[in-house]
């Protein structure tokens, strides 16, 4: 099974970064395309079960717009907007994004790298939030193994 090999890793770095890594069985070119072609993005960037993406604007060029709108039958809808800053086919994408809930959240600056890893790809997504508080609000610290709250809960069960 490729389960272990493909396992998602999610950790914090310094005060304002979150780093996600994931391996894919396809070469960097394919993974890069799946991140920059709106027709492909629309197929996988959907989050939990039950959500669809009726609007997917993904203009993969420096200065190009990003707009993802998600909808759920019962839970309503929300959207993300952003802009592409740098694109290096097929190895690197830099963009900013913010969520509208409906007030915009602070900008999340995201660098996504696609490195050849055998016949596959190692993807490294590095998010930079404006400050520690924003990051904490977004994901909280130490999420790799379930983060503090889980530790706290675990401790209280021991």
């Amino acid at each position, binding site marked *: 099974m490729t389960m272990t090999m493909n396992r998602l890793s999610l950790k914090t770095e310094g005060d304002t970064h979150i780093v996600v890594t994931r391996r894919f069985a396809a070469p960097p070119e394919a993974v890069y395309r799946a991140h920059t072609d709106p027709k492909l993005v629309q197929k996988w960037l959907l989050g*939990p079960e039950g959500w669809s993406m009726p609007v997917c604007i993904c203009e993969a060029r420096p200065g190009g717009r990003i707009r993802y709108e998600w909808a759920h039958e019962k839970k309503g809808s929300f959207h993300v907007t952003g802009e592409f800053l740098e694109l290096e086919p097929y190895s690197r994408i830099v963009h900013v994004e913010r969520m509208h809930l409906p007030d915009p959240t602070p900008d999340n600056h995201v660098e996504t790298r696609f490195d050849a890893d055998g016949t596959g790809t190692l993807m490294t997504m590095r998010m930079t939030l404006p400050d520690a508080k924003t990051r904490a609000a977004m994901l909280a610290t130490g999420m790799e193994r379930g983060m503090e709250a889980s530790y706290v809960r675990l401790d209280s069960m021991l």
Partner: protein
Amino acid sequence: MPNLNSAFAALADPTRRAILARLASGEASVMELAKPFEMTQPAISQHLKVLEEAGLIVRRVDGTKRPRRLAKAGIDAMDQWLAMLRKALEKNYDRLDEVLTTMQSDSERKKR
């Protein structure tokens, strides 16, 4: 229902995380909570207030004392929310695996 944003903001501070870790082993008075830190009681009280407003701890009245303990609902809600986020990312990339498989078989078909 605790406010998740303020819960995560509350957790951004190492002193408040240490307070939560201490409370995980059981109820404690403000004095007991202040002891391990080189901090005045008002400073500790300020941290407790943040944790309380975030729905992570609750207080009890015991004579003149106000011992604090973990609020299970707050901790559980946050836990579930994080598990959900992680699951959402995992789900995305599992779907991306399928997209990549389809792309590969499409390009192989074109080559033939």
